[in-house]
Each structure stands twice: as structure tokens, then as C-alpha cells.
């Protein structure tokens, strides 16, 4: 084989490809025999591999849970952060909500588009909606580039 390190990776790759092909073609009986000859208990090996599967799935879902928890925390922070920026009076809140609605009518979700009785919303509901809209990025910024 080549003594040059430059070609070694390609050569090793070719050898491993051939070994992989050979292993894929091998019968299960032969693989079991080989493992036994190497001192490996096939049943125990199956258990170990199944355990590794469980770990892989657990780790994956753990990461998803962490990501979702992080997203939720970020959203809650945004919602809380905007609370202090809301107008104090109900009418100002209603005006703000209407202006956001008018500006973003095309992109609003069905839930918001279908709201036809904004005037009947209570102060708490208005605040909650504005906070949620802020979390979704619809809240106008101080520089006037909201939505």
C-alpha cells in the first residue's frame, strides 16, 4: 500500500468500502459466529444496541424539549417585556390593536382576522392580545417600524 499519507485516506476508504460490502453480504449466522469467536454474546450485544437506540431517541427528544422550553421562555420574556410599554387606557389599547390589525391584515392569522368585535374586548383581553401580538413581532417599535 502507499506509504504516502496523502493517499492514505482514499486507500483506507476503499478498504473499508470493501469490508462494509462484505459485511452487508454476510449471513446473520456468520455474523453471530464471528461475534462469538470474538468473545461477544450476541444476545447481550443486541441488548446493548437496543439500549443505544433508546439513548439516541431520548437525547433527541430531550433536545427538542429543551429547545421548546427555551422558545417558550423567550416568548414569555417578550410578552412580559412589552407589558410596560402598553398604553394605560383601554381606548388607546384598542386604537393600537386596530392599527396593528389594519397594518397587518394580510398576514394576520385567521383568529385575528375573524375578530369583528374588537370594541367589546375587555381591558385585560386587549392587554393580553397586544402582548401576544408583540411576542409574534407585530408590535410597533419606538422607531415606528412595527409589524
Amino acid at each position, binding site marked *: 500500500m502507499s506509504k504516502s499519507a496523502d493517499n492514505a485516506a482514499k486507500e*483506507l476508504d476503499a478498504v473499508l468500502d*470493501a*469490508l462494509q460490502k462484505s*459485511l452487508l453480504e454476510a449471513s446473520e449466522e456468520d455474523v453471530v459466529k464471528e461475534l462469538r469467536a*470474538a468473545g461477544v454474546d*450476541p444476545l447481550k450485544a443486541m441488548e*446493548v444496541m437496543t439500549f443505544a437506540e433508546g*439513548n*439516541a431517541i431520548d437525547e433527541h427528544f430531550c433536545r427538542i424539549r429543551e429547545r421548546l422550553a427555551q422558545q417558550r421562555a423567550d416568548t414569555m420574556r417578550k410578552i412580559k417585556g412589552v407589558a410596560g410599554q402598553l398604553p394605560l387606557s383601554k381606548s388607546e389599547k384598542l386604537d393600537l390593536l386596530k392599527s396593528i390589525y389594519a397594518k397587518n391584515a394580510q398576514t394576520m392569522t385567521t383568529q385575528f382576522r375573524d375578530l369583528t368585535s374588537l370594541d367589546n374586548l375587555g381591558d385585560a383581553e386587549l392587554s393580553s392580545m397586544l402582548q401576544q401580538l408583540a411576542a409574534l413581532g407585530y408590535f410597533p417599535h419606538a422607531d415606528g417600524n412595527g409589524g
Partner: protein
Amino acid sequence: MSEDKDPDCASEAEVRSAIAALGAQKLKLLTWGKTLLWTYGAFAEGREPEDLYQEALKRTWERKRKWKPKNCSFVEHLMGAMKSIASHLPEKYGEDVRNVPLRGSDLADSSGEDENLVDPIENVASNTLTPEEELAAKQALDRIEKLMEDDEEAFSVLVLLAQRKTEPEITEDLNLPRKSVHAAIERIRYKISKTAK
């Protein structure tokens, strides 16, 4: 598992089914892991074959390593992923094996899509090897070569395999029956498997 818009890429349900259907094929994957860890010697110290398997599965779940059923079977996909993970150990941890972490889950970078973990079918000619990887490959070849030096026929086959010769070409070059070449490759595989811990 995040959804992917690539229509050739297996869905979460397909991956689930494929894992559930692996059955005794897992023993092949374990054997493959043993082979890879023995091949990469010191860089694989403290590692177990199931660590490579676990990492390959995790990367498939996370679509950092995409399985395209049209291109290869699930076992081939996992073998490719395991090989890729093992071959990048020298690059990731350098020459000092003390840098190698002891947990399988730390084998590869967990953030984002790992561009180095490419499907061999998708990226046959990757020229992104580091000096550490090249050196590790050379050391690995030396190990295999040394292991087979008492089997002249298998050794000759090994040398030609490294030159990317196919079985029919090797048959012709060595003037051997095809089944002898096939058996020689099996002996190489078997000997590594037996020698590997």
C-alpha cells in the same frame, strides 16, 4: 425530528419503521462499529461500537445526516454515518488522544448540520481532509496491513483493494478464482472483527 422539505429524505415515520425493522442487522452494525474503532486505534480509545451507532441514529433523527431510501438501505446509511463519525475523530481531537471525550454523545459536534458528515453517495470526492485525518488513515492502513501479513493471499487482495480495484479486477490481476478473492476479503473482515475488542 425536524421536518425536511427534501422529498427524497426519509420521513420520521420511515426512520422509526426502519429502526424497528433492524432486528439482527444490529449485530452487523455492532461488528462494523468494532471494525471502525479498531481501525482508528488510539483515536477511538474509550469508545464502544454502540456509541457510534447511537451517534449515527441521533444524527439521522436530527437530520444532520440525511437518509435517502432511494440511494441506500437504512443499514448502509447507518454504516456510512458510523464510518464518517469514526473517520473524523482524529480531525476533531487532534493527535492527542487525551482530548477525546469519553461519552459517545460527545463524538461529534451537536450544533447545526455537520457538513463533514456527508453521505458517501452524495459526496464521493470530498477533499476536506486534515493532516490528522490523513495521518490516522495511514496508521490505520498500517494496522490492517500488519494484521494480514501472515496471509499472503489476503494481503495481496488488501493491497489491490486499497488501489480501488474491484473484485473482478483483483481476480484478473492475481489470477485467482473469484471466490478466493471474495473469501480473502471475508478473512480480512473476520480477522479485524476477531482482533477488535
